[in-house]
């Protein structure tokens, strides 16, 4: 076989020679179904530590890396997993666009051999183009265990492109894959799937307009959605639309099913010819595990138990012990370092900056690290094993009520631990709109760092019923989160579908390597943020907290003088704003402001401002007397509600900015959260401070409003005949799709 221009053996010794020869970097794209092992293959090829999970849709944006094995000079791009080139989410659109624009020299189509039938659907869509394709038949190890035999030579002949059987984690297989890539013919591929005569005629009529077979097929499959994409001139678009309209009207079958049905028929013949399966209806290990884990009765209790266990390990005694040990070591290290730096004899503010902003800030953030690492570790195991998909399956019904999909449940659940990983995990949602909604409501879920606030304040004021008070706050957070989700969906994010159609992957034993890589990737992300964005923010907050005017002189302040700080002045200045919420003192206002650094610092700040000596974080009882003096129970409850609902700490804000993807949305989310926090705290204080009569009146008012709302809704529904199940029907006409639906 001839060698192509990229597979030069000499390029290690003469890296320049490639360009000199008119060659370049070979652009390879990995395309495959979600959960087919793409990312494992990508890691194997590039040596990069990339995120791999057993949850359909883990790769959410394309990643690129250089091939590190063998002597090939190539750049590999890992594209988001897709089931089909007809996309339903933005992530999938990335892959489809990338492919349509031919931004690669060759495609490695990774196919899960244990799920050949469905995986070959995408393969066939890819084969419709003239791009060089190599099929990497993955999971050969699993196939072997299942007593499935695949005739690779025959498959290769039937598909018309090279097929390389691999186990993505096996180095020798990757070398073989690379060898085949190096010898692949990179000219436009001639062999493409031929369909039946009717379809061929159809393709021909479209191809006359598109000029390209692949684009013609895309137009037939996706109709107006594909035709109106940028690329065709307006005249061609009009002609294509007219053509589509005429052929789809006369089609006997559902027109959009013609091509897929034909493809699946072809696939069935190919599979029948190339694959031998023994013990077809054998009960698989996945079946056995699912009999328990998604059981009708014990499925949910088990899910709750598993999640509880993860939280207990991360935030319970084990996590606490590791955190305390870790913080102590870090603190000692920082004290030594800080003493060393101070001995250099620099100005006093340098010492304060280092102690309070750099080291103090780092300890505040790094204090989370052990707990986050434990949380990430267990979540990776749950994800890699395939359980997370089951969790979404189990919880979908509950989430659907609020217009969300079951996949939104895990991010919200993680929110109880920490908003940062919770927001990162929203990337597993299909729709950008669903992701935005979930990201924006996560801060309302009471995170672990808010617990000390409740602990100290409820402990001081609600001694006997502290548990109920704390529980009610958690509950308040969930209610606000869910209602906000409904509100967003009905107003500004109408595109959110909360659609649910999900594959349940087979259970897999998570490998040590993957689990560690996976955990490390997430921890690294957190560390990088702590070292960059957060450090900057801490320095700003430090400046505001440790500088101020004392007796007309602007100077560096001692910790005890925080009252005079710029932040203190801001707190005092903002007091009138907070007064309707029941804040009668500037000190709680300042404490709330420092909460944006880290929510648990609210407690610490109260301690400093009220002049309590000792570590209030570990011994909250020290604060009890001053809290009893400073707050009435209603004021305290409004204060806690505000701390719970107001925009989250800087780490979470940074995560939110990243996930929302634009400043506009980010600022909206922050403004929304502040407004809600303010309104809820206002309502609590204004109603609560009017005593029993006030609370009863409010309760009656809410009851009356809900009754009116409910009645109006029923009437409107009857008139409009809308069931809300799809957007295919308009509210004016009777729903054709669901004649049996409740009107």
């Amino acid at each position, binding site marked *: 076989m001839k060698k192509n221009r990229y597979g030069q053996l000499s390029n290690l010794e003469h890296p320049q020679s490639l360009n000199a020869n008119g060659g370049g970097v070979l652009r390879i794209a990995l395309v495959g179904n979600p959960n087919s092992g793409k990312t494992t293959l990508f890691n194997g090829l590039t040596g990069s530590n990339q995120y791999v999970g057993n949850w359909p849709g883990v790769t959410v944006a394309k990643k690129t890396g250089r091939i590190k094995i063998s002597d090939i000079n190539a750049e590999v791009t890992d594209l988001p997993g897709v*089931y*089909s080139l*007809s996309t*339903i989410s933005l992530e999938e659109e990335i892959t489809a666009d990338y492919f349509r624009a031919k931004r690669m020299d060759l495609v490695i189509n990774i196919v899960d051999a244990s*799920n*050949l*039938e*469905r995986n070959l*659907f995408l393969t066939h869509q890819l084969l419709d183009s003239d791009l060089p394709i190599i099929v990497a038949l993955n999971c050969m190890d699993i196939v072997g265990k299942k007593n499935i035999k695949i005739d690779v030579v025959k498959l290769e002949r039937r598909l018309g492109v090279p097929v390389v059987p691999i186990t993505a984690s096996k180095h020798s297989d990757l070398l073989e894959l690379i060898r085949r890539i190096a010898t692949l013919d990179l000219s436009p591929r001639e062999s493409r799937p031929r369909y039946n005569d009717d379809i061929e005629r159809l393709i021909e009529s479209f191809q006359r307009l598109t000029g390209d077979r692949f684009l013609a097929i895309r137009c037939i*499959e*996706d109709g107006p959605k594909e035709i109106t994409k940028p690329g065709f001139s307006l005249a061609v678009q009009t002609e294509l639309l007219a053509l589509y309209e005429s052929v789809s009207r006369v089609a006997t*079958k*559902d027109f*959009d*099913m013609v091509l*897929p*049905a034909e493809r*699946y028929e072809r696939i069935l013949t190919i599979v029948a010819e190339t694959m031998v399966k023994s013990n077809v209806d054998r009960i698989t290990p*996945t079946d056995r595990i699912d009999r328990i884990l*998604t*059981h*009708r*009765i014990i*499925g*949910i209790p088990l899910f709750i138990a598993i999640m509880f266990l993860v939280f207990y390990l991360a935030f319970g005694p084990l996590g606490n012990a590791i955190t305390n040990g870790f913080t102590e070591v870090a603190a000692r290290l920082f004290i030594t370092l800080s003493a060393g730096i101070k001995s250099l004899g620099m100005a006093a503010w340098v010492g304060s900056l280092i102690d309070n902003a750099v080291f103090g800030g780092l300890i505040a953030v790094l204090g989370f690290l052990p707990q986050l690492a434990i949380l990430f570790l267990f979540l990776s195991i749950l994800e890699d094993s395939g359980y997370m998909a089951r969790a979404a*399956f*189990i919880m*979908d*019904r*509950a989430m*659907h009520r609020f217009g969300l999909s*079951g996949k939104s449940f895990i991010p919200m659940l993680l929110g109880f631990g920490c908003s940062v990983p919770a927001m990162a995990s929203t990337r597993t949602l299909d729709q950008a709109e669903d992701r935005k909604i979930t990201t924006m409501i996560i801060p309302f879920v009471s995170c672990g760092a808010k617990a000390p606030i409740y602990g100290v304040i409820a402990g001081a004021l609600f001694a006997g019923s502290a548990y109920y008070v704390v529980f009610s706050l958690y509950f308040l957070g969930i209610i606000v989160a869910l209602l906000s989700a409904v509100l967003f969906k009905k107003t500004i994010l109408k595109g959110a*579908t909360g*659609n*649910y*159609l*999900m*594959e*349940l*992957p*087979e259970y897999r034993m998570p490998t040590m390597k993957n689990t560690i890589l996976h955990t490390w990737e997430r921890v690294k992300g957190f560390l990088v943020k702590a070292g960059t964005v957060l450090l900057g923010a801490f320095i700003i907050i430090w400046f505001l907290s440790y500088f101020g005017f004392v007796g007309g002189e602007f100077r560096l302040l001692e910790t005890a003088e925080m009252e005079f700080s710029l932040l203190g002045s801001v707190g005092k200045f903002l007091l009138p704003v907070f007064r309707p919420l029941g804040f009668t003192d500037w000190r709680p206002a300042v404490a709330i402001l420092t909460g944006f650094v880290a929510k648990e610092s609210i407690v610490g700040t109260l301690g400093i401002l009220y002049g309590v000596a000792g570590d209030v974080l570990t011994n909250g009882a020290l604060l009890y007397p001053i809290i009893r003096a400073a707050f009435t129970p209603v004021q305290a409850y409004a204060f806690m509600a505000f701390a719970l609902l107001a925009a989250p700490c800087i780490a979470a804000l940074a995560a939110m900015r990243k996930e929302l993807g634009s400043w506009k949305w980010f600022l909206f989310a922050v403004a929304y959260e502040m407004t809600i926090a303010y309104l809820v705290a206002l309502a609590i204080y204004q109603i609560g401070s009017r005593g029993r009569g006030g609370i009863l009146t409010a309760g009656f008012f809410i009851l009356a409003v809900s009754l009116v709302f409910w009645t109006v809704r029923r009437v409107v529904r009857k008139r409009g005949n809308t069931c809300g*199940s*799809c*957007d*295919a029907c308009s509210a004016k006409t009777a729903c*054709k*799709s*669901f004649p*049996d639906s409740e009107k």
Partner: protein
Amino acid sequence: MTLKDIRPGDQCIVVRLEMNNLRKRIIDMGLTTGTLIKVKKLAPLGDPMEIVVRGYLLTLRKAEARTIEVTRIAPAA
């Protein structure tokens, strides 16, 4: 009869797909006319449902299931 009416353990064959949000995706996932579906189970809260189609496990909501017209077939002996 729609897929929604098929009880766990029973099998059916796709006859027709009505319009819905996910129609094209459902087709591409392999639920074309004539495809054999085995209903595996319902989620603990009664929705979504889990089916076996083309050798893999797919879960979908009843809202979509009732847009998939099917005929029940006798289970294999």
